[in-house]
């Protein structure tokens, strides 16, 4: 709770805002959640600032979930499911697209940058892709800075000078895909 983790060295160098975004990832049980597991089995390292919420199908991910996340202060929200034609429930992901479009409209109306919300298809086999998407999205959200809805402390932290107990731990994505453990 008292620890602070700074973003990847790469980003610290390029981005003026030094902070770790808080990202909510919604994933369907059959493809994208499984893809994240595959990344685990293959030890494909990626940035750790997201929290996963599992639902059975991407069709379950309704606008209200995304709004709630932003309202609570999420800096980014990723919605993910199976590739087209692969949905365990046939067309759930097509419904997800429609819901996502609606969500995106409202999100824009609320004055939240488009780049904070993303939709991705990741299959159960695509562990590497899952890691890639997470890294990319994290960097993208980081570049956008804290969400306008994020709590005061987030903003306070950005304004605080860098350093002071910050430990530069490297969240580099492509560090040693094969080696877990130590």
């Amino acid at each position, binding site marked *: 709770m008292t620890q602070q983790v700074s973003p990847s060295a790469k980003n610290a160098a390029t981005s003026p805002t030094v902070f770790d975004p808080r990202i909510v990832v919604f994933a369907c049980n059959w493809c994208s959640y499984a893809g994240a597991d595959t990344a685990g089995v293959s030890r494909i390292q990626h940035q750790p600032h997201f929290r996963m919420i599992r639902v*059975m199908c991407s*069709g379950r991910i309704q606008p209200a979930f995304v709004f709630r996340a932003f309202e609570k202060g999420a800096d980014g929200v990723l919605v993910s499911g199976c590739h087209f034609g692969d949905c365990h429930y046939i067309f759930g992901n097509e419904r*997800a697209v429609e819901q996502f479009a609606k969500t995106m409209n409202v999100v824009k109306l609320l004055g939240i940058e488009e780049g904070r919300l993303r939709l991705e298809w990741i299959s159960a*086999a695509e562990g*590497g892709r899952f890691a890639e998407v997470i890294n990319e999205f994290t960097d993208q959200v980081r570049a956008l800075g804290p969400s306008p809805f994020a709590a005061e402390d987030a903003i306070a932290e950005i304004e605080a000078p860098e350093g002071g107990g910050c430990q530069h731990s490297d969240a580099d994505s492509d560090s040693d895909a094969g080696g877990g453990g130590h």
Partner: protein
Amino acid sequence: MDAGRHPLIEVITNAEITGCEGGPGDFTVTVRKNPRYVGDDCVACGLCVDHCPQVGGNEFDMGLKARKAIYRPFPQSVPATYVIDSDACLNFMPHLDERQKRRLDKMAKFKRKIDPNYPPNILVCGHCSDACDVDAIDFDQMPEEISLDVGSILVAVGFQEFDARVLGAYGYGRLPNVVTSLELERMLNASGVTGGHVVRPSDLETPKRIVFIQCVGARGEGGRPYCSRFCCMNAVKDSMLIRQHDPVVEEITILYTDLRAFGKGFDDFVTRSKEAASAEYVRGRPAKVWHDPADDTLQVFVEDTRGHEQRRIPADLVVLSVAAAPNEGAVELAEIFGIETDAHGFIARRDPAVSAVETSREGVFVCGSAVGPQVIPDCVAQASATASRAQLYLTGHRHEEKAEPVEPMDLSGPPRVGVMVCHCGVNIAGVLDVEQLAADAAELTDVVVTSTDLFACSSTGQDELMETIKEHRLNRIVVAACTPRTHEPVFRETLARIGFNPFLLEMVNIRDQCSWVHAGTPEAAQNKARALIRMGVARARHLEPLQEGAAAMTRSALVIGGGIAGIQAATDLAVQGFPVTLVEKSNRLGGRLAEPNLMLLYPTMRPASEVLADKLRRLDASGARILLETEVENITGFVGSFEATLKGAVDEVLPVGAVILAVGADLHDPGAAFRFGELPNVVTSADLERRFVNGDDLGLGAEAPKSAAFVLCVGSREPKGFTGCSRYCCPTAIKQAMELNRRGIDTTVFYRDIRTISTGAEEMYREARGRGVLFVRVPPGHTPEIVGNGRAEAVRCYDELLDRRLEVPADLVVLSVGMRPRQPETDHFHEMLKASVGLDGFFLERHPELAPVETAVEGVLLAGTVQGPKDIVDSVAQASAAAAKAAVFLAHDQVRLDPAVAVVDPEICRGCGDCVEICQFHAPALSETAPGVFAAEINASLCKGCGTCASWCPSGAIAARHFTDRQVLAQIDAFFDEARP
């Protein structure tokens, strides 16, 4: 994965069959289990791999990537344990006593006998066993002989790649940038060697120009005579994938002979790929691949059949679509089992038209590519077919589930949450501070107790969990360990044993999705794990106990349609002892086989009547109830309790548990195309067959023909209309052409691609050409034209080879007509059963590869051509598969209903019907609750629990159980309960 988890399936890997005795229903098979040197305690943590110093080639990645001497064959392997490659392992004999040394010595000698290069063990290593926390490494394992008593045997040994080195001209094995299609496949796999990108093996650069060479080692050229069936589509798919992944690739060329996109939806796929301009298609077989040392590129020499042009296509990477060859051990295995193999070394079937899966020995079955190359949908259908046939020998062994009812625990009252955090050896604890996580969790609302465990999933871990629940009167459990996808079933089962409602368990994934992937940032990982547990607890507080429901299962089936597929499905089910009713609209069984318009069935040339008689004999003996001249007027209900209204021979409402649709397909009516109907000597292939059978003269009002022409793909592969391939017409036309040829009639076949994909058909094609049947390819965009006044006299068409218009005399023109969905049956049953129909008008399978005979409606199965055009062999296989799937339902007297489904609150529902519209499973339906007031209701037997309707409902009347709004929102909120770290 599912097979590995099934309680009735024992998987023995790394083993070979050494003997087989006995007979059908009572075989004794001896199996030699080769040692894996890793015991059953292995938790698949992978520490050993990190410590192993020895590197070997990785077979799964086609040697493109290295692996250690101890390894997991591939990420989804079953069992999930590791294996030591004794040929690569440095230390194969640590701490041995004399006896063991002698044993090992013997084994090494034995190994050296087989392979003189077998390395002597010189080093003493054992790093893996030092690293292993659970002491799973056991170097002393010896091969073990076990014997199994089984009722029937299924052979599914698959195929192996044709060794392309044999064809020296293509340079495989000599030129590094010539790879096989399987090697390319590993590159394109996102979790594969190169993370989904193509590279040139020589310098790991992305190739700019890629050339695919098809039919390498297949269809005769220096290899095997047959067609490998899957390579065309594979190349098309790969070209699309490459284009999507690597925009740098500039040119992709596919050198092919015939484009065999014969499967359902395959032609559409090719069209899309052509539209996306993913590749240039050149028809021709290259002579050689030449390496230009100057700039390290390759040149492919090919004669383009279009205008006989000699071309030299430059390439950075050449992909050989290699043929499928029989598995090396197949012949040996066949000898052990006493079954026959064919001339190529594949397992032979007794008669594929009678049963697609029977070998020459009773009780031994075969499926998949062990009989010859197959595409996945066909393999899966055949596999189910074998299972269905195999059951016949298992009667009396059928497994009935006997659950001893456990007194449910009283879990009422405010939430009392217990949190258990797992070390998973060092898998979690090596990165995360597990004790701290437990301590943090103890602070959360409603958490009564926390604990940690070395391995929560071990039996001691589970015992402790049960103790803790009882001791602290817990009513919610949070297990922070590995992924729920593999371990939720394990924990749920444990909980169910003590009467704890399994739906009150929440699993938090802090291994696969945390410690394993954030090892480099332990503090951030710790924060993440803490947050995930917090979110899990928040969700757990809102979990509701759900009761697994059950609905009665009527243990009988209805088969609709008495063609070959219907007969097969009904026979299979009836023989297993299930009451089956077979209804047929007409007054005789046999469908197309009985019409009579089929003379000889390719490739065995057995008369159709003989095959049919054989089938009918089996059907009669099976005891199925047969209703001729009967129609199914209506079907209502759902799996387990359908009710079919039958009219005709009987007038009754028949209750059944499952329905198999086998109504067949229609033949395309050419209308006025090709001057059919106008000229008397233009006939359809079905007409011709009928004339053959009846011995009618072929003159059609004039003297016997001297010449004949076939026009293929009439009503198939049409840009407007049926875009698919009808599959059966190529071999049928060739068979008929050969018959005409035999009668001394000069025969020409106008074709677009010859798709002789069924067993023996390619050989038949060669034979026909050898006998002088002329084959003329109709290039895309052209159609043959019938010339003649009052009678057809010739067929005119542009010929690509000669680059001019060609006219061949034809006193008889035969149109090979394709298949059409049968109407009005298709619409009728589509409406009643709500099973979806695809764009091509045929019934849609639930998944082309995973569920080829099932529909989205549970309990409704497809057999034969209702699902799409196929020939007799494939229809029969599919019918057996449908029977097997029906038996899965009928084997139980109840249907278990997953309670994690959607429910409607009728108070809130406005009856708008949106849910009814979007649900693919037809679970919601509107009903009138009060005069003029409608509300939706969701049928739990049909709902699959995806929760889409809950999100879609405009009034929020639907709750997706186990993923309710409350539960998900609580989870979201909990993330932000803690300030930014």
